[in-house]
């Protein structure tokens, strides 16, 4: 497709720790499209942040990208595999900050405490564009105004600890967008903020995205943020994307048992007041003890209902379940298993309203 910006194929990022190997990202496939927002959701430790850092190759040892491809579509017919570049090399550094920028979870910790906001914004701009300090200052102040910081001329010379949390995150956004990147990666940008500020920041991101026509990858565990922001959604579990589709596909027609479990665990206003929240049974397995076969099989109700033994031994492939909708599950693989129609119904009944497929 010609609106494709970044194509991630079988990305693998592993951590070589003293106690063993942790496959933080283990075969991720993703399509990131121009002008659209892709939300990556999953529990803590599912590898979503490491996946995001892998896109910029800023994973540091003991972490290392060991396989896969990240194809960047610069323009029509101009495609490069970012993993061909050395992670410290000039091509990769020219990509970082300029073509793709990142904002982080903790705006206080993510800004250096000993430099002014302005200094840190200009740093990025002057690195990628050869402009004078005065010009950079003008552009940076304009950017600060654009992200809704009042009195930007004065704020330019303020230190991070002189700003509120929301203002700091706005400054972070200004810093990331100063070079007008094609891709913005936002790693839980609102997690550390209070609820009203969250809404303002999300609104700002949407506005700027439309203005700059950039793609956004939004890392989050908050399905509310997903519903608000996303065009497409990728659900991650233990280093793999288990389901990817449009936001409507994911919310109204989820195909992977894990996605269904996540959606079922959201508290709903219209539910019975005394009803227990549905929770996915068990806990995320320890990274050193990854289950074989499908990584979710230890907690999957539908496997138990369907008595699928192959999930324990065979890793399921990514199966197309809709036009732009994929799920990594044996339940949807025609050749893999023969399910009684009764079993499929049984599996989907208690969890979703729209049924299986």
């Amino acid at each position, binding site marked *: 497709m010609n609106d494709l910006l970044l194509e991630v194929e079988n990305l693998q990022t592993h951590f070589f720790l003293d106690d063993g190997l942790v496959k933080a990202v283990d075969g991720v496939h993703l399509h990131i499209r121009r002008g659209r927002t892709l939300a990556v959701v999953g529990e803590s430790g599912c590898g979503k942040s490491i996946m995001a*850092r892998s896109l*910029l190759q*800023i994973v*540091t040892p003991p972490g290392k990208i060991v396989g896969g491809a990240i194809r960047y579509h610069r323009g029509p017919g101009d495609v490069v595999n970012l993993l061909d570049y050395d992670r*410290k090399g000039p091509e990769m*550094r*020219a*990509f*970082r*900050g*300029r073509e793709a*920028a*990142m904002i*982080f*979870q*903790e705006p206080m*910790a*993510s*800004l*250096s*405490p*000993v*430099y*002014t906001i302005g200094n*840190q914004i200009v*740093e*990025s701009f002057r*690195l*990628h564009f050869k402009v004078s300090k005065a010009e950079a200052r003008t552009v940076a102040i304009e950017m600060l105004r654009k992200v809704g910081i009042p009195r930007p001329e004065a704020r330019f010379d303020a*230190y991070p*600890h*002189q700003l509120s949390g929301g203002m700091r995150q706005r400054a*972070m956004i200004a*810093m990331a967008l100063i070079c007008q990147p094609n891709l913005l990666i936002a790693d839980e940008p609102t997690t550390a903020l209070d609820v009203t500020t969250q809404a303002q920041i999300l609104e700002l991101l949407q506005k700027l995205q439309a203005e700059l026509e950039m793609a956004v990858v939004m890392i989050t565990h908050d399905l509310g943020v997903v519903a608000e922001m996303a065009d497409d959604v990728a659900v991650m579990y233990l280093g793999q994307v288990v389901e990817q589709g449009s936001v409507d596909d994911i919310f109204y027609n989820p195909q992977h048992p894990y996605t269904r479990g996540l959606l079922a665990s959201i508290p709903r206003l219209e539910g019975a007041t005394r009803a227990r929240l549905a929770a996915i049974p068990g806990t995320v397995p320890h990274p050193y003890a990854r289950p074989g076969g499908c990584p979710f099989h230890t907690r999957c109700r539908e496997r138990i209902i369907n008595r699928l033994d192959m999930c324990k031994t065979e890793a399921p492939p990514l199966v197309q379940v809709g036009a732009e909708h994929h799920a990594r599950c044996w339940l949807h693989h025609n050749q893999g298993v023969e399910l009684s129609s009764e079993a499929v119904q049984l599996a989907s009944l208690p969890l979703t309203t729209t049924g299986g497929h």
Partner: protein
Amino acid sequence: MTSYILRRLLYFIPTLLAISLVTFFIIQLPPGDFLTSFEARALASGDQADLERVEQLRERYGLDQPWYVQYWKWFTGILVGDFGYSFQWKQPVADLLGQRMLLTFLLALATTVFVWAVAIPMGIYAAMRKNTVGDYAVSFTGFIGLATPDFLLALVLMWVAFFYFDMSVGGLFSPEFEGAPWSMAKVWDLLGHLWIPVVVIGTNGTAGLIRILRANLLDELHKPYVETARAKGLTEWHLTAKHPVRVALNPFISGIGDTLPGLISGATITSIVLSLPTAGPLLLQSLLSQDMYLAGSYIFLLSILSVLGVLISDILLAWLDPRIRYQ
């Protein structure tokens, strides 16, 4: 900022008064004094000139009066530049210290520059290459430096310089320049001699600072703001030098306060081994022979340096770290 510095300078006055009082009190505590024994010798030899001299000094510094009167005379003298009289050297203390303080200060400055120039790059390197051969090499060198006694290193270096480079060792000047007036040649000669004491005195501090910087930097290297800088596309060296190193240097800066007096008084043993014309050996002698005005003035100067050092490091810290400045 200006009012902060002014306020700190005002605190100086009572601090220094207290220090000088205590110093003087302690120095005159031991029974007997230099002058009494000097007078006894003069009486025995019947040297009329010496006896007159003793009488003059006794008059000038109130030596037959209680210690607080002596203190007052000494301290008010200092305010007009009279630091007292060295009985042993038969010279005004100001002249005696003046010659030596310049060289001492030069040595201290050169040593500090050496320590920082070596310790900062090595510490950064060790932290960035943590647990690699390079890190182990730096750490090993550092521990050797910490463990080697200064006087031993001084002896070894003197031997090497003498045996292999045929240099005149000991002191800060070659014999032909010893009493000569200052000239380019003399400065050049000084630089040729300076490196041995600089290396000897600096090694210990260098080793310690490498350890401190490595540990501090390791704490900072994985902070989120470093990742932010990396995501901007900066090179590893650029981003490390600009962001985490700047924060990791704070303990260095607060250490300046101790460095100033430490370099002067701490180098006494080395100075004696290398027979350097600096202030350290002079203090030791003056204390041994109860040369009270020399010892007192010397310690008073050291105290000023300590207080000044702390002030300088506080100002530098406030300048470097905005979080301190705005408190």
